[in-house]
């Protein structure tokens, strides 16, 4: 089934422009892999970049430096082309994490070291080198997450299961692209556990007392 919740246009533009943090980009890549609609939007955002490159008007294109670089390029045309990397194709392997998550959580679901966060709730947190946070959450079915807001943006891709909050029903393949002013309380759907991955560019804000007790778990 195709996703019903998509990336914000502003996020796609940032991704096309190369201005997203590596963590946000990884979640975007995860969503794009399963969403033809957002891939089409991204192609249109890339086209804006193409036009802007085209519109550059070089002042003196044909100087001595250009001739030197041109010769250097000609000399390289006979170089053997590098073989494209073999696709790491393991789609059939149910233990394999989606590729964009490998740098943060490794490649194997079984090898994940979940940490307890509350009844039926587990998490793994990785701090990216740029200070962004990647959070993998596994929330048992029918659980109520603490209400939380965001100081920065939160980009969450639902990998398995589903949850509901004031913004709607989010199922596997959907992305929740949330602004700093959004406060929400996801409730996971009955049936299977909900697994989702969030990129945060600033710590979560938990207003409630229970949530404040959780906050140290997120290392904030």
């Amino acid at each position, binding site marked *: 089934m195709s996703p019903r919740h998509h990336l914000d246009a*502003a996020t796609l533009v940032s991704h096309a422009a190369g201005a997203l943090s590596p963590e946000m980009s990884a979640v975007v890549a995860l969503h794009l892999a399963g969403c033809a609609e957002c891939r089409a939007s991204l192609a249109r955002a890339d086209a804006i970049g193409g036009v802007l490159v*085209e519109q550059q008007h070089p002042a003196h294109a044909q100087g001595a430096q250009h001739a030197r670089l041109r010769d250097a390029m000609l000399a390289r045309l006979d170089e053997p082309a590098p073989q494209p990397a073999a*696709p790491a194709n393991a789609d059939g392997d149910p233990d394999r994490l989606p590729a964009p998550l490998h740098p943060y959580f490794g490649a194997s679901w079984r090898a994940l070291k979940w940490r307890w966060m509350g009844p039926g709730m587990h998490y793994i947190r990785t701090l990216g080198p740029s200070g962004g946070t990647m959070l993998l959450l596994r929330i048992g079915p029918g659980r109520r997450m603490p209400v939380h807001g965001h100081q920065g943006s939160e980009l969450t891709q639902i990998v398995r299961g589903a949850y509901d909050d004031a913004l709607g029903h989010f199922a596997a393949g959907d992305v929740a692209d949330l602004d700093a002013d959004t406060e929400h309380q996801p409730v996971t759907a009955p049936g299977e556990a909900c697994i989702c991955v969030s990129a945060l560019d600033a710590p979560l804000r938990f207003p409630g007392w229970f949530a404040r007790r959780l906050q140290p778990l997120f290392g904030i």
Partner: protein
Amino acid sequence: MPQSAPSERPAPFEAARRMSASAATGQEARDWSDEMAAVAGRRDRDCFLRIYDHFMPRLCLYLRGVGVPEAVAEELAQESLLRLWQRASSYDPARSALATWLFRIARNLQIDRLRREAGHPQVGEQAIDAEWDADPGTTEAHADQVQLQRRIEALPPVQARLIRMSYFEAKSHQQIASELGMPLGTVKSHVRRAFLRLQGEMGGEP
């Protein structure tokens, strides 16, 4: 409420103004599909050099704009054009304009360079190909590009400035917001509206 308080650092305004001025010369994008067919089919070096002469200085300007030092910008632009030569047969003019293809290659090489320096995970060749394969393709990529160019030139000034700052300075919307003294939500909604206008989804509405 003023939408943009005076910035302490005027550079982005300058850059945006210079770019608007140069965009206004109204030169239309060329269609490179014949040259690319010759490069892919006959390994035609003359055709490649025509592409090279056109795009090399433009890619350098783009990379300088996103903050790459001049020598590195030249190196990355060379690398981008070498990829074009080596992978010409995978270019499909129905799917995207050549400028868009080169923009992607140069942008991904630049992101990889930044991440390598910072010890981040790389985007890698595969991501470039994946995005490329995922491109839904239109039959009129060149015509689309010409139309898109006209729409960019017709954007309201604030939207035009924010789009150019996003792409040409590779700034996050948070950074743009602080530089321009604009609330983040305002920056995002301008960018959103600009994107919709550029897709022709908002008619004449500002």
